[in-house]
């Protein structure tokens, strides 16, 4: 079970300051024009960019929690996925347990044996999601998880994320440029015009 994610006075040289609370177990959509600071905001939550202000999960402050531990609790998934080992399965701690999840996302289990650089953009996207979720983070921050997917796979992604959230009861924040898709996935949607400094 996750805890409230609180942020106060968060600012980077390019965005903020911003403050607020994301309630435990909520499922929030984030939309807005490109360059408005949505990804930067989520990267602050995930401790991937240097920022001012404070962020806490439950009673735990980001700065007083070891960085790797924090990022295992608060997981950010990039919009473009990269791979570092030759085989896809090398990126998973327990590739044998992925079969049902692969099926839910419209992927064959044999894809785990393929070379990472042979994946299509859509395959890479879906496998990247599984890679990010494999150790069940408390907070899941997804940056355009459905971009570059065809209609059928967007639908599979939607069903997968809906079921995942319902089953795991994690906190989820999803960025998307497709409001209709986002509204079907999330309990509420926030539109950001600009988080850029000075705006």
């Amino acid at each position, binding site marked *: 079970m996750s805890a409230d994610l609180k942020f106060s006075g968060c600012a980077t040289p390019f965005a903020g300051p911003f403050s607020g609370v994301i309630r435990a177990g909520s499922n929030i959509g984030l939309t807005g024009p490109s360059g408005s600071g949505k990804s930067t905001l989520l990267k602050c939550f*995930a*401790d*991937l*960019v*240097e920022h001012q202000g404070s962020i806490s999960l439950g009673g735990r402050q980001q700065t007083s929690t070891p*960085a*790797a*531990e924090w*990022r*295992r609790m608060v*997981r*950010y*998934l*990039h919009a*473009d*996925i*990269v791979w*570092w080992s030759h085989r896809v399965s090398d990126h998973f701690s327990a590739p044998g347990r992925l079969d049902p999840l692969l099926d839910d996302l419209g992927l064959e289990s044999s894809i785990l044996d393929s070379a990472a650089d042979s994946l299509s953009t859509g395959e890479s996207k879906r496998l990247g999601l599984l*890679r*990010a979720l494999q*150790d069940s983070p408390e907070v899941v921050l997804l940056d355009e998880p459905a971009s570059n997917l065809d209609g059928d796979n967007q639908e599979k992604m939607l069903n997968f994320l809906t079921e995942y959230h319902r089953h795991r009861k994690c906190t989820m924040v999803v960025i998307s440029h497709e409001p209709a898709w986002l509204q079907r996935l999330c309990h509420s949607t926030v539109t950001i015009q600009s988080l850029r400094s000075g705006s």
Partner: protein
Amino acid sequence: MSNPPLQFWHLGVGALSMLVIGVCFWVTRLGLVRSMAVSAIRMCAQLLLLGLVLELLFEGRVWWWTVLFLLVMIVVATRESTQRLRRRLQGIANLVVPFVSLLAAALPYTALLVLVVFRPQPWHEPSILLPVFGMILGNVMNTVSLALNQFFQNLQSGRHIIEQRLALGHEIAEITRGFRVDAARTAMLPILNAMAVTGIVSLPGMMTGQILAGESPEQAVRYQILIWFGIASGAGAACLIALHMSLRAVTDSRGRPTRIFERPE
């Protein structure tokens, strides 16, 4: 056997061969003519000046003159080791990392060779201390330069991998291990290659010099083996220190890369 003293016109013969190659490069438009000319003039000026300074140092045998000269060598090597990098550290770290690496690697191995093996009287005998230090420092400087260049390039080309693995909760030391292994291999390769073929493909400069000066080949070989161990150990130590320090310098307290990507002018 003693060698005839060299006159300036002897050096002119050597310069002529370089001039011919320079003309060939210019005619075939391969470029580098200006760099060749500058490097050749710089080399002549530096060595002639060095000759004068060494004469003074050898005659004076004042310990702090020798130490001062060692310091100048390290400062120049520090600057040169980062001068031609495609990417550099920002700020003072660009000097501190190579300086500490060079100092911490070259000095102990020089001290070991000079104080344990050569045992000159006095300990700061410049005719022993300076050549030994120079041989180790020159090789160590190249190693540091190659290691940093490759490591920074790896960090730049792997920046997306770094960020995505950080996001997955991996530690920066673990993420960059492959980058450091690759950088160390690149940096140590010239020395390992040279050691592997020494005596077969090439005769090392110090050994050749000793033989030309009348030393027995067997003794010259022993000295050369010792120097090779000093060079290889110093280079390995410098490589380890430079890579460790530069990783610290390019990441913040949360393991995020912050200051890698300044491009030199």
